[in-house]
């Protein structure tokens, strides 16, 4: 296990470095300058030069990159041009909000999708299966802002049951103190990811149900409920774990649309604003966070795999 972890961490470092190189140089290939974008079109050449000097933008790209890597290694991602705050502070504010929102909705989606997928597989070809399939595809094909608006229209505007705005507190504790405000955004994002998970679960459960060991479990006299819970569920979860690992980066990348509809500034909006204003430090900082999340996500998936399936335990045996 140790050797395995060492290897994975080595891989992670390489991937994150690669992400940094690519993002850094690609951002600088985009036409237009940060100074123009921050100071406005009427800024004088003098002010632009001052801006560039202040942020080190007058140096050659390679030097800038080395400086960035060196600073990033110390946890300093620079200061946002437009917001005049350290990028690390901004991310520290925004990241937990998205972690909470998207983490909750992913968990909820899984909690619904796993049983739903198995149920569909068991009832394959029957009406219930078809109904859920249609529902999945409808959900899958609808854009999230549409859900958000429909939910707001029904639950906030029409019936005044739930607030249309997400909690505005700064801290996670503060947000959790107002759970009502979280309901609509969480439900919106759950519906978005539900379809994908349940389709995978259905396909995977179908494969599992066809395995001999399921028939063996039945031949022992196990009730179907236990057959499904003990022998089908765990064996069917593996493909879903892969998808889950792959969705880790999207949890930290935020959900721009949901964030803006529910007025819940998170990573998504932060990155969007940075991209439009050429705020390099924020863009680099968030990309790095997403890169790390990607690597961690796949590591998490592999570890979860090995816990679920004894055949892939990474031991030195």
């Amino acid at each position, binding site marked *: 296990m140790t050797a395995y972890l060492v290897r994975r961490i080595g891989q992670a470092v390489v991937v994150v470095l690669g992400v940094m190189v690519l993002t850094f140089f690609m951002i600088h290939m985009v036409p237009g300058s940060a100074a123009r974008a921050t100071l406005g079109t009427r800024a004088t050449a003098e002010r632009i030069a001052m801006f560039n000097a202040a942020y080190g933008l007058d140096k050659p790209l390679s030097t800038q990159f080395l400086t960035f890597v060196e600073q990033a290694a110390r946890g300093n991602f620079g200061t946002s041009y437009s917001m005049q705050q350290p990028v690390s502070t901004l991310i520290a504010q925004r990241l937990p909000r998205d972690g909470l929102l998207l983490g909750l909705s992913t968990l909820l989606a899984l909690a619904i999708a796993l049983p739903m997928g198995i149920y569909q597989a068991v009832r394959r070809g029957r009406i219930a299966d078809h109904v859920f399939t249609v529902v999945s595809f409808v959900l899958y094909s609808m854009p999230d802002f549409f859900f958000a608006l429909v939910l707001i229209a029904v639950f906030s505007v029409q019936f005044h049951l739930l607030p249309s705005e997400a909690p505005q507190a700064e801290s996670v504790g503060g947000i959790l103190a107002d759970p009502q405000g979280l309901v609509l955004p969480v439900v919106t994002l759950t519906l978005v990811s539900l379809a994908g998970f349940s389709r995978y679960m259905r396909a995977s459960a179908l494969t599992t149900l066809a395995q001999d060991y399921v028939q063996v479990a039945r031949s022992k006299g196990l009730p179907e409920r236990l057959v499904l819970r003990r022998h089908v569920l*765990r064996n069917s979860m593996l493909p879903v774990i892969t998808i889950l690992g792959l969705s880790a980066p999207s949890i930290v990348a935020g959900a721009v649309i949901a964030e803006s509809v529910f007025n819940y500034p998170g990573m998504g909006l932060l990155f969007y604003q940075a991209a439009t204003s050429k705020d390099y430090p924020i863009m680099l900082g968030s990309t790095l966070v997403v890169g790390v999340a990607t690597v961690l996500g796949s590591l998490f998936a592999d570890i979860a795999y090995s816990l679920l399936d004894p055949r892939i335990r990474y031991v030195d045996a």
Partner: protein
Amino acid sequence: MPPLLEVSNLTTHIRTRRGVVRAVDGVSFTLEEGETLGLVGESGCGKSMTGLSVMGLLPRGGSIVGDSSVRLGGRELVGLPESDLRRVRGNEIAMVFQDPMSALDPTKTIGHQVAESVLLHRGGTRAEAADRAAEVLGLVGLPHPRERLGDYPHQLSGGLRQRVLIAMALVNEPKVLIADEPTTALDVTIQAQILDLLADLRARLRMAMILITHDMGVTAGHTDRVNVMYAGRIAESAGTGPLFRAMRHPYTQSLLASVPRLDRGPTGQLPTIPGLPPDLTDPPSGCRFAARCQYATDRCRTAEPELTGPATHRYACWHPTDGPRPAEPVDTPMDVEVVLPAQAAAVASAAVAERPVLEARDLVREFPVRGSWLPGRERRVVHALSGVSLTIGHGETLGIVGESGCGKTTLGRLLVGLDRPDSGTVTLDGTDLGRLRGRELRQRRRDLQMMFQDPFSSLDPRMRVGSILREPLQIQGLGTTSEQRERVAELLAEVGLPAHAADLYPHEFSGGQRQRVGLARALALTPKLIVADEPVSALDVSVRAQVLNLMRGLQVSHGLSYVVISHDLAVVRYLADRIGVMYLGRMVEVGSADDIHLRAAHPYTAGLLKAVPVPDPDVERAKHGAGVRGELPSPLAPPSGCRFRTRCPLAQDLCALEEPTPRLFATGHTAACHFPLQTPLPDASPALTGDPA
């Protein structure tokens, strides 16, 4: 007192998109305490479905219909509510399934899986259930059962997994055990061990057993009575002895005649059963076997025969036969010249002496274990082949036999150049294949073709058969498009497929027909040598005979050489002039088919032969003990000295110290053993005679 199990008029229908399949159609039988009943037949005959129906475990769309009745100790099971049936399943009637590799949940420990049944039916604490699991695992011969409760299925070999499955079925001491092809997925050596175990347990626990199998040899040795099934019905039902000695149904007769026999000398053409079983969505009106029966008359085609005859021997036939078919078939359905291997062998050994087609010397192939390159880890390799040499003459068939994991498939891949040896050479007509690269190698590949085991996965499902057969010609740039089409038609005719087969996709063919396509593809480039890796093991008995006959016929007409790799010694005996026996990456014995079968010198060869079930109850009953004990050691760390010593009844200290060198027993017959069963020729090392072992 009612019989232990009484099945009467059992009829199972399965609704599918194509219509209702009458999988089991009016099957009746009884089973007494302590008795083993064989359900025998080819795939799709309804034997497994009968077992599943008794268990009440039907597939999707399946239902037991009509006045079907299954009584266990007088109690009717058909129509019982699911909750009551569950109390019977795994408790009073238990089942062992075919494939031990897939029948255990990979994510649960074996202790958990065995204890699960105990907790379910007997209650008690987890600790008590674990105790019981350990006890039964010990009973089925799992070494150190208590320590292994926490093992996962993938940590066990196939044979041990089958033992675990048997333990799972027996843990509640059921009255009836249904074993559905319990040894089909296992090596013959392990098969013999498992069958002995089942017989022993049945006697000790006073169980009754239904043994479902397609193997006439297994049937002969391990059943008391037999029901031969055909197309969802019982064709014949008799005691095992009378059935084999004096069968009345022509199907039983043909089935038995079409099995290649290990205990008989070389025969001519194998009798085949032409055609295929009927479609059970629309069974024919008369006798279901009529279309394939050589004795069929108009009456057979219109009126369906009922089971008749004395209570001890019943058969459903209008024109019952009397006993087995005479050894030499009078008429053979295929117009291929009959060539006895003896003749071929004579020709072949002359050819070998002259100039071999293919020669392999000291082939070594090792596969590194994944991840073992990492620092701090021992470098470990799978020793797949450790110095194997052989020669194949023009027109000769060399059979390679051995248990799974002995390296025979690796050897086949090296011979046709699909893989390269780590050391050693493969020489084709004097050219070292290892030195060829690129275009030259590609051109040489023409001469070496391969025929695969699985006719379902070895043909691209999205290519028409015509394209599959043309592809090798296109790759080699042989002929114009129209010439290639002509060649395809010619190939199809040669393997006995209709010309329009070229326009069809592989899934439109039966398994046997697909294997014919596989053979045609191998023939397309008029190769000198075809390596056939388990060419018929995926096929049913009757179809197997057709393909074997075809392979032999084509060999004669094309002057082909074959390397036939198989775990089935009877198949190899039927096809091969010479046989090589492999064990754990080594060739332990090579000789003519007769040398191997009649005068085996290596104890492993003798054990392997003994383990093969022969379709003759008298021969089978006379056997005592399994042929080879234990299981194949890990190829990661083969035993020192003679690799077979850990399982050899004759092993002595010398065997662990010194690796035996091949010794000569007769011309062309060598074996590597310190204590051979035959006397070697004095002072004649094979190196001197120039014939490598």
